[in-house]
């Protein structure tokens, strides 16, 4: 919806500025089960990359 507004509308500089500055309520991903599980998968990938590239880099 927001991306649609940003890329598909006839935009001028003011619209773009408003898109990046307007306040939208942030949702906590932990409030939904799907958000919690997706966060868990993303955290798994982040920790895996961190471990491979920083802790085990020299092995």
């Amino acid at each position, binding site marked *: 919806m927001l991306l649609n507004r940003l890329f598909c509308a006839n935009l001028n500089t003011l619209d773009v500025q408003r898109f990046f500055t307007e306040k939208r309520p942030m949702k*906590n991903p*932990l*409030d939904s*089960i799907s958000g*919690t*599980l997706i*966060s*868990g*998968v993303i*955290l*798994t990938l982040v*920790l*895996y990359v961190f*471990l*491979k590239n920083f*802790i*085990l880099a020299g*092995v």
Partner: protein
Amino acid sequence: MDLLPGFARWIHVWAGITWVGLLYYFNFVQVPALKEAAADGTAAGITRHVAPRALLWFRWAAVVTWVAGAALLGKAFVPAFTLQEDYAAIGVGAWLGTIMLFNVWVLIWPNQKKILGMVPADDAAKARARRVAFLASRTNTMLSVPMIFFMTNGLTHRAIFGL
């Protein structure tokens, strides 16, 4: 002494299934069910008879899982928790499990006692306790995803980490 790792692994997995199984029960079944039960006035059945029993098994299964895991690590306990080369992957799993144990005993259980009326709390304190316990429980559900990945792959499928 060679029997110890075998027994420790058995108890660790057994208690871990109980702990994480109840964690998923709370998150996937009880919380959504309580919302509907509160709407038709039947929530007391869950909060009075089901939740206290589930929480008892949940918090002690967490302790047994951690202690059996520590026994299973044995001499590798310190190398795992300090993320030394050979034990770094299982060490990440051990740290995640430890954070989850902390959440159970420091955030979830004390706040659940207020919610269930086991300790006195006014309505504002109960509302705050409900939110803290909910977020801590959801955090543990989120952490369980990488925890299981690192626990199951850390020592037995080490190729995934290039070891």
